[in-house]
């Protein structure tokens, strides 16, 4: 790292740009929280991929910043040992960049799709998974996961990361001190909420504000509840086999309202939900002002500096409770690795990205979780990611992908969000909101 740094400064100095003069002495990068494990540094492990001198594979994804650095680190030895250069580009405008490039005949070799629904739009241009990638995927992931990488019975894309979304954050010590038990069913969750409220603490912290995407945390609430009414219902709902305003869905929204529209439950009052930034939504737990906050596993990285995120720390998460006894479900998110090019270097890269080696390495280069069955969850860099990876790799857990990412953009990235905002603001009833969203569903 320091070598490139010096070269950079040299480049800056020769480039005659006045700006470049600004301090070339200083800062070392923040220490990254993980590193490449020893077994992934041995080129012998990469021999099977072959050697490709000077070939470049371009990858486009929506992952940026520190997370992207950690991902790039995870494949750095693959690059070194095979000679393939991976040109990763993290885009803040992933959907539109993909569309423009694919339609313009300039698709990246590989794309990391965060939404399976979006990937389907490009089915005509995708290269199906080879037999090798197929068998790696079958070994690595459960059927539930693979169906989201499959379009019309052809398998295209194994997953990259996996995120557990059905999490409720809480303070373990607060629960222990007050003698509260982690609830296992929806009814227990409600009675626990009542008890906490009776003890004089607000049971829930909720924040839906997220700039242009305000309202999305609400969609996760509804998805969690519908999923636990039944996976069949969930599948019919996201595939629009039943209308969005089906009575069962309206009932699920009503059920979410038992918490979200309950004045006795919400810290700050229900009218603050839509204006509380989701990033800070759960912070009041740290002050003992509220008890629970529903948010995905990635929220572990959003707590203020100095917070210990662990089972015996300041905050941790438990799984969103089931409604029906015996169910074992999890709402998930993640990216899918799809290819637009069938060159051998691309094929090698696809195989590597579907391999146990990559997933195990990536798990150790920084906070991350995966559903790849071959990894050891204990390798995760943080307790919450270990917990998430344990659940995601457990074959007994039924997983379903985040519904708003599967619905058409007009709904999943637009009317569903606004509907949730109008609903928590009390502007519209559950039924009106469901009707509005149904009307926005493209024909």
């Amino acid at each position, binding site marked *: 790292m320091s070598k*490139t740094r010096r*070269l*950079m400064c*040299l*480049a*800056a100095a*020769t*480039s005659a740009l006045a700006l470049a003069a600004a301090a070339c002495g200083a800062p070392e990068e923040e220490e990254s929280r993980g590193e490449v494990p020893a077994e992934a540094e041995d080129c012998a492990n990469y021999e099977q991929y072959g050697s490709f001198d000077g070939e470049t594979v371009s990858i486009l994804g929506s992952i940026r910043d520190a997370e992207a650095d950690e991902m790039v680190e995870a494949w750095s030895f693959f690059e070194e040992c095979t000679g393939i250069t991976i040109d990763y580009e993290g885009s803040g405008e992933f*959907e*539109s960049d993909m*569309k*423009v490039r694919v339609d313009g005949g300039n698709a990246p070799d590989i794309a990391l799709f965060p939404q399976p629904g979006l990937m389907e*739009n490009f089915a005509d241009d995708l290269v199906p998974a080879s037999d090798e990638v197929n068998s790696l995927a079958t070994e690595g992931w459960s059927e539930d996961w693979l169906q989201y990488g499959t379009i019309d019975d052809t398998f295209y894309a194994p997953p990259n990361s996996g995120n557990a979304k059905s999490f409720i954050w809480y303070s373990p010590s607060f629960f222990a001190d007050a003698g509260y038990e982690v609830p296992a069913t929806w009814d227990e969750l409600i009675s626990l909420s009542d008890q906490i409220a009776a003890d004089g603490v607000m049971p829930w912290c909720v924040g839906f*504000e997220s*700039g*242009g*995407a*305000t309202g999305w945390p609400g969609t996760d609430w509804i998805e969690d509840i519908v999923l636990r009414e039944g996976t069949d219902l969930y599948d019919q709902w996201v595939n629009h086999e039943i209308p969005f305003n089906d009575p069962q869905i309206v009932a699920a929204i009503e059920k979410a309202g038992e918490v979200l529209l309950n004045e006795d439950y919400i810290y*700050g009052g229900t009218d*603050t939900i*839509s*204006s*509380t*930034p989701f990033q*800070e939504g759960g912070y009041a737990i740290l002050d003992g002002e509220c008890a629970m906050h529903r948010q995905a596993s990635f929220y572990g990285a959003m707590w203020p500096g100095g917070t210990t995120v662990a089972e015996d720390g300041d905050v941790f998460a438990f799984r969103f409770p089931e409604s029906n006894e015996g169910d074992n479900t999890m709402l998930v998110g993640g990216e899918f690795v799809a290819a637009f090019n069938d060159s051998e270097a691309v094929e090698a890269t696809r195989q590597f990205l579907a391999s146990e080696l990559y997933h195990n390495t990536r798990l150790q280069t920084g906070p991350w979780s995966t559903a790849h069955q071959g990894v050891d969850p204990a390798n995760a860099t943080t307790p919450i990611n270990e917990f998430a990876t344990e659940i995601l790799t457990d074959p007994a857990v039924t997983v379903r992908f985040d519904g708003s990412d599967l619905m*058409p*953009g*007009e709904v999943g*990235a*637009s009317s569903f*969000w*606004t509907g949730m905002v109008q609903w928590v603001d009390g502007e519209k009833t559950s039924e009106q909101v469901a009707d509005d969203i149904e009307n*926005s569903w*493209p024909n």
Partner: protein
Amino acid sequence: MNVSQLTDRFGLLAVGLIAFVVVMLALYGLAELASRRNRSRLVASVFLFPAVLFLLLGLVYPAVRTIVMSFYSSDGSRFVWLDNYGWALSDPDAVQTLINTALWIIIVPALSTALGLVYAVLIDGRRGERTYKALVFLPMGISFVGASIIWKFIYQYKATGNQIGLMNQVVVWFGASPINWLNTFPMNNLLLMVVLIWIEVGFATVVLSAALKGVPLEIIEAARIDGASPAQIFWRVTVPSIRSAIVVVAVTVFIATLKLFDIVRAMTGGHHGTDVLAHNMWDQAFRLGNDGRGATMAVLLFLLVVPVVIYQVRNMRRQELEAR
């Protein structure tokens, strides 16, 4: 970034520039040949060739393609007649987009021109006029994206704790509770327009201020002797004398407003009732995969400019008559 990356880029720059010079020399030679034979049509073709080629390729063909696409379904597979236009004029979100666009193209050019004119008049002849002008002119050099970032720090909202957005801090100083500006419809539309007005007023000021200097003093003097009040002089003498400059400013700002995309993209993403045509077109075509609808929005955008084009054409005809 290392040295080879640097030489790559500047090497490419050098090669590109040399190639361009060679092309220009060749064109010049051609023009010279044609000129000698005194064939003005041929000379014109040589002069116009590079520009027309580029325009055909990069603008005319895409424009035609867009118009055709607007009659086809989302994925371009079915001819749907005017369905997309029906959608644009009936869907509540699309209608909101059209209403917003209408407000933008009325309010932004009007306010930018008016503010620019007032400011130009006020600072005319004042000590430090150039500094005054430069301060207001400054935002014109800032990209829409940069401006959006600047204004996000003005509108930024936090429900509790210290405010980091200036406007909410002012609100808090006055003892009220902070407001989520950008998420509050319909106010958010005006707040986005403020960003564009902030950029365009400087342009208006500079052009109008220069035009003011061209108004002959004698006319104003004569009006004063006739007993006209300052307001009368302003409306009946000053404004008519710089009328064409005002029109140029208004038209330029109008076209910029109509094509506005970046500010909405960077600040609200078109949510919360703030979408405008140029952004919705992008959203439909590139984010939601509705090529037909996106194309329809683009065609509506062309149509909105037609009156301006007609006005300009008539203007040109008139001037040509005057020139004779």
